[in-house]
């Protein structure tokens, strides 16, 4: 039962975009059916908006004024040129996997070197066309009928399937870079599968300018028993577009997932994560560092499902807001009735640098088991004048003292995340952001 709604210009545009693009989109018949159903959801319900609980503070319908066409395919040379101009990680010694304008570019990815480390890469579109194509678009129950996921399912242009074989420990971090070479929506989906006991450090970056079209990237992590996955996501881009990322994580037994999402994005950025424990004695550490100024909105949303007993999760988010920026943190820990001995600790802290900045902190616990340790907290404040005075009394000028204190505030999360490869990169990004004021 849905009442027909009046579609906005952007929503009508998305429906038209689907009709125009559908025959060219990859996938088996089953995949095509899933795409059509997802597009049908957009047509029936529109984009997620403020009366949808999960989007109360991040009204995508109000933000998206129009629907740009999907970004056109680009040549390897064009992608290569764009990539050279937009290196996000500088000197970091790493392997690289490249997605340009929504499509996997094997020619620019370190296929052979990764193969030697036990990592195989496949084009997501080829996998979508296979027997198991539809399974690649599966989504966890906790994601419900999420509108951003539906947009992704309808329009996904490509991506990569990265599989690390059991026992392989990849020696260097792997950068998965998604570059917008030209205007247009960029819709991707990547699957990251770790075999039993495998270890991988992944750095996900977005490069290029967020233009008229939305960026919508889904990352689907499957972490097998005893495997370790550490991912850092840099949602840093210029421009006025919407950048949307969704993580779906499944964690096996005795496994570990550690993630940090760093947002210093354009006008509308949302990072949402759906994390599910599927095996006992595992650990998830989810960190977030968010910087926003101007009229930007930055949203970190998270659901951690403790569906099995004896798992630990730690959620630690830090936000710094300036000007009229708005920050959103929505985090929920679900503990199922039989998930005894769950240990969950969630904290969200915001630092407001201006009178006009606004933070919505919404930490939640939903606990059905009776033998658990769960805690949550939220703080929101300004720079402590006493700390500032102490630094200035030692000769440190005001702006430099503020930089030190903002960095100190954020470093608690960055340093607890403790991925040494990226610590300096992240701290430099914070300094750059502060200096750009």
């Amino acid at each position: 039962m849905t009442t027909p709604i009046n579609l906005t210009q952007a929503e009508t545009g998305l429906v038209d975009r689907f009709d125009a693009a559908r025959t060219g989109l990859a996938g088996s018949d089953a995949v095509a059916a899933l795409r059509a159903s997802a597009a049908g959801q957009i047509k029936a319900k529109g984009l997620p908006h403020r009366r949808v609980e999960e989007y109360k503070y991040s009204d995508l319908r109000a933000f998206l004024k129009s629907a740009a066409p999907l970004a056109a395919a680009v040549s390897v040379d064009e992608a290569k040129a764009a990539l050279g101009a937009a290196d996000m990680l500088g000197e970091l010694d790493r392997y690289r996997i490249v997605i340009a304008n929504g499509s996997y570019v094997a020619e620019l990815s370190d296929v052979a070197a990764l193969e030697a480390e036990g990592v195989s890469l496949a084009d997501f579109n080829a996998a979508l066309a296979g027997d198991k194509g539809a399974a690649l678009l599966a989504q966890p129950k906790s994601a419900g009928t999420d509108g951003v996921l539906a947009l992704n399912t309808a329009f996904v242009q490509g991506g990569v399937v990265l599989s690390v074989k059991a026992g392989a420990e990849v020696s260097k971090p792997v950068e998965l870079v998604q570059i917008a070479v030209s205007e247009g929506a960029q819709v991707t989906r990547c699957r990251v599968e770790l075999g039993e006991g495998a270890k991988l450090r992944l750095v996900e970056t977005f490069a290029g300018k967020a233009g008229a079209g939305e960026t919508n990237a889904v990352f689907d992590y499957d972490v097998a028993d005893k495997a370790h996955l550490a991912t850092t996501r840099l949602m840093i881009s210029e421009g006025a577009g919407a950048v949307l990322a969704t993580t779906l994580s499944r964690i096996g037994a005795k496994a570990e997932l550690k993630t940090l999402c760093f947002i210093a994005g354009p006008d509308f950025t949302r990072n949402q994560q759906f994390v599910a424990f599927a095996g006992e004695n595992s650990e998830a550490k989810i960190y977030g560092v968010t910087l926003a100024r101007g009229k930007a909105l930055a949203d970190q949303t998270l659901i951690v499902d403790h569906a099995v007993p004896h798992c630990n999760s730690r959620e630690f988010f830090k936000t710094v807001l300036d000007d009229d920026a708005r920050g959103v943190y929505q985090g929920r820990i679900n503990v199922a009735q039989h998930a005894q001995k769950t240990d969950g600790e969630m904290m969200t802290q915001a630092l407001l640098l201006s009178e006009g900045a606004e933070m919505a902190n919404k930490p939640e616990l939903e606990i059905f088991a009776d033998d658990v340790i769960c805690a949550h907290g939220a703080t929101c404040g300004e720079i402590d004048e006493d700390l500032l005075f102490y630094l200035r009394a030692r000769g440190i000028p005001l702006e430099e003292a503020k930089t030190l204190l903002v960095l100190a505030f954020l470093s608690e999360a960055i340093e607890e995340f403790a991925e040494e490869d990226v610590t300096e990169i992240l701290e430099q990004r914070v300094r750059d952001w502060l200096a750009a004021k």
Partner: protein
Amino acid sequence: MLEIKNLHARIAEDGSEILRGIDLTVNPGEIHAIMGPNGSGKSTLSYILAGKEDYEITEGEILFNGENLLEMEPDERAAAGVFLAFQYPIEIPGVATMEFLKTAINAQRKARGEDALSIPDFMKLVKAKSADLNVTMDMLKRPLNVGFSGGEKKRAEILQMALLEPKLCVLDETDSGLDIDALRIVSEGVNKLRSPDRSMIVITHYQRLLDHIVPDVVHVLSKGKIVKTGGKELALELEKNGYADYTGAAA
């Protein structure tokens, strides 16, 4: 070095008057002790010298080497040579002590038009000065003042003072919370910094500190005014008779 003339100040927030006409001249090389009961305005005076914004100056002026101190920002005062050793040094989680020391030294050097210290020179300097004050490498590796004991915090303050080489040192109850050994170490650190072109204002409740850091002049502050000035023997007299004579006298 320092001239305070008829200084009146109140708390900006609620308007309560704390300082009611202070006159004080400190010449180069002199050590002045300021003693007085709780609430007499000793800490307020130290904060006003360092530039804390919570106070409003209603009358009077402060000249530091001929310059109007009250018109300078806290960091400008520090670069000009004013140093306040805090009564309660502040813990700053996330700011590494070494990083802080380097930033402070180089910010002051930059303000004075000098080149930044190289990392090896900086390390050498810190190592030399911290050994004197029994400040360990372990302390320096921690975030600023975090997890330091009371004595460690005070030693760290004096280390900062030794590294920054100020012209005017204001020590706000540096003896509070110190045991006898720590008091000796801190006092030795301070005495090492005595020099003909460096002045000090030592604020304390107790004469004990003045056995170690021997002042040239002792002032008694009561109800926001200096009510008595004398030599070091004045401190001994106060220790014997208490402040009763002066709090009465000022009323």
